[in-house]
């Protein structure tokens, strides 16, 4: 774990720097802190910051960039002859990486010496067996070019790591030295430290943006890869979803979208009336005691993890529905997993979501509005229906859209409760599947990451991201507009 050690050393240097900086500042002032511009600890902190932050920043960048650079250099060295029919340079490279990792592991476990790992030749050694002995399974026998590339890979990566250690440590030491030199009693340590901390704060705030960029990039690049292998038209307008890992898959998104929307609509049909009426009752009618009991109780539903709802759908609601609508009952349901099962349970999950959002929104309608209506002799329900709800309508629409976006993005309930068959059917008691469920099944299978069957998950993810993001942005816009109206 050399990186961990490196980080610990940098932190140790930082701690040392704190002590030295503080002492030097005090020494410069002859021990009288009144002669210092700032408190002594600021001089120490200044040294620490200048030691730790640039070094760790560089370390982070290096760790991100090095694999890319190494990959590119090794890949360029691979002769075209090493890439046989029916594979790609990327696939060979992933083999190379696996071999390199295997060699590392073999060395780490003492099954091979450093020398051996560096010098063995595929012509003389069965590398696959030797690596298999340390638990690294390779798909095919290791050819000479791959092994050679893997050894090159290890060498370049090793050199890179060594260089990284050197540069990071030099930077940290340089930081200690530079900041100690600058430490004089008149040095404005507090201002420097505060500027530094400010940048750290800004960096923390940008992580949200980096996350979004990360999401978008990881979706976009893999989606582009997917569309190189599978036509976009067939993906967006295909009505059949039948992936087969042997090739010849049909990957049309329409059945998945239909399942997603059907389940979401059932979920909303359950949660919106119940949630809305519950919110109205609790905010307009209920006595404080009832409210103090029922509101947190309903909100408990929101704190329950979705896996619990998934299990509830699979093992409780599904069999119950099957008893009523299955062969022994109405006879329109084949199995416990169905659109209705997932939709119903998802509806239960969304009740507290709808009701607490609606509650906020209803409470934002000013009391004077209710007084005005009651003062004219309206009943409470007339006041709610004709004054409060119309006034709160935009907010409630926003809340419902947020709930819809939740329903569309929900995974565990549909993975467990909706079934796995991609159907374009109107029967709510039939099994269907959704975008999220298929993302899970395509990425947890044994498919190769470069195959269209796995890459399609990224295209599905992209679609999901765009739909939910659109709904959210629109809903937040409406809710914000609504809040401004009464502020």
């Amino acid at each position, binding site marked *: 774990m050399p990186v961990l050690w490196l980080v610990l050393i940098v932190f140790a240097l930082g701690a040392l720097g704190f002590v030295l900086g503080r002492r030097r500042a005090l020494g410069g002032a002859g021990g009288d802190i009144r002669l210092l511009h700032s408190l002594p600890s600021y001089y120490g902190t200044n040294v620490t910051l200048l030691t730790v932050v640039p070094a760790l920043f560089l370390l982070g960048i290096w760790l991100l960039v090095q694999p890319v650079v190494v990959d590119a250099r090794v890949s360029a060295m691979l002769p075209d002859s090493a890439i046989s029919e029916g594979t790609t340079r990327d696939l060979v490279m992933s083999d190379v990486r696996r071999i390199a990792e295997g060699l590392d592991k073999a060395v780490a476990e003492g099954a091979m010496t450093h020398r051996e790992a560096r010098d063995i030749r595929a012509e003389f050694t069965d590398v696959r067996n030797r690596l298999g002995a340390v638990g690294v399974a390779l798909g095919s026998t290791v050819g000479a070019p791959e092994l050679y590339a893997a050894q090159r890979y290890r060498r370049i990566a090793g050199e890179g790591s060594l260089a990284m250690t050197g540069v990071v440590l030099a930077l940290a030491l340089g930081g200690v030295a530079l900041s100690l030199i600058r430490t004089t009693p008149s040095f404005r340590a507090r201002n420097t430290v505060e500027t530094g901390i400010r940048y750290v704060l800004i960096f923390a705030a940008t992580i949200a943006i980096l996350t979004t960029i990360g999401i978008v990039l990881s979706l976009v690049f893999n989606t582009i890869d997917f569309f190189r292998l599978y036509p976009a038209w067939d993906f967006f307008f295909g009505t059949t979803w039948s992936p087969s890992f042997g090739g010849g898959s049909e990957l049309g998104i329409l059945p998945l979208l239909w399942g997603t929307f059907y389940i979401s609509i059932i979920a909303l049909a359950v949660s919106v009336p119940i949630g809305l009426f519950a919110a109205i009752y609790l905010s307009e009618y209920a*006595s*404080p005691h009832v409210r103090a009991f029922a509101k947190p109780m309903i909100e408990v539903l929101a704190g329950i993890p979705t896996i619990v709802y998934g299990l509830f759908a699979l093992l409780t609601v599904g069999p119950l529905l099957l008893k009523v609508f299955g062969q022994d009952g109405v006879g329109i349901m084949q199995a416990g997993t169905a659109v209705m099962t997932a939709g119903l349970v998802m509806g239960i999950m969304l009740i507290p979501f709808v009701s607490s959002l609606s509650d906020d929104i209803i409470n934002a309608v*000013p009391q*004077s*509005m*209710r*007084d*005005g*209506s*009651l*003062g*004219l*002799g*309206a*009943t409470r329900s*007339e006041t709610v229906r*004709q*004054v409060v709800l*119309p*006034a709160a309508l935009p907010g409630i629409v926003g809340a419902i859209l947020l709930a819809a976006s939740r329903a569309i993005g929900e995974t565990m309930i549909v993975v467990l409760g909706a079934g796995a068959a991609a159907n374009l059917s109107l029967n709510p008691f039939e099994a269907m599947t959704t975008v999220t469920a298929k993302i899970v099944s395509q990425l947890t299978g044994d498919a190769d990451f470069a195959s269209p069957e796995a890459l399609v998950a990224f295209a599905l993810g992209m679609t999901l991201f765009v739909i939910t993001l659109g709904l959210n942005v629109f809903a937040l816009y409406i809710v914000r507009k609504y809040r401004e109206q009464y502020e």
Partner: protein
Amino acid sequence: MYDNPDLARTTVTRDIKIAAHGCQVYYGDTHAIRDVDIDIEDKTVTAFIGPSGCGKSTFLRCLNRMNDTIDICRVEGDIRLDGEDIYDKRVDPVQLRAKVGMVFQKPNPFPKSIYDNVAYGPRIHGLARCKADLDEIVESSLRRAAIWGEVKDRLDAPGTGLSGGQQQRLCIARAVATEPEVLLMDEPCSALDPIATAQVEELIDELRGQYSVVIVTHSMQQAARVSQKTAFFHLGSLVEYGETGHIFTNPTDPRTESYITGRIG
């Protein structure tokens, strides 16, 4: 009709619209109104004055049971409208409020069109048989609230888009549209500028012809200008009640005098 104020004081000849006896109001443990006895006359403007927190608004809200909407509020005693106890179990506050309308301190038009604001009451009470009826009620109510001329071309515009004074007159139009017998006004001018205040005061004076109007006000000048009778509240009790002229020129209670001369309040 009653030109002689001295006669009016005895109140035998005038109709009593609302009669309260031994009225007590509690907010939780706080005794907010103590033992108020008052007879409010028909076709008269009665002003409730007094320092902040003296209970005048609380008492006003008892008269159409708006206090029912506050959970911790409890009303005791006897308040009669035309001889009927309004706190009787059989009384539906909804029916009561249709008879005793209310205008609030802050203009509170609904976020609907001007037309719908005024038509709201008649609609819920079923006062119109057809659209034409409703149109007429809206128009006559807006006329009585002296705002018809300003809004007749934009009845579909939202009521919240009007100026403060217009909004308050719209609220008055909304209140008179349900044909109440009593109109309660809780500091109707406190959120308005002087010009709008003058318009509303003029309107109150005209409404007297048809309704019994009760107005809570902070301003003694306003009470003197618009009311015929004045009640002075202090610390939850009714201190003095009588002809406005008397109260202002010749108060009997020293507390009333202190308030009127500006020593408490």
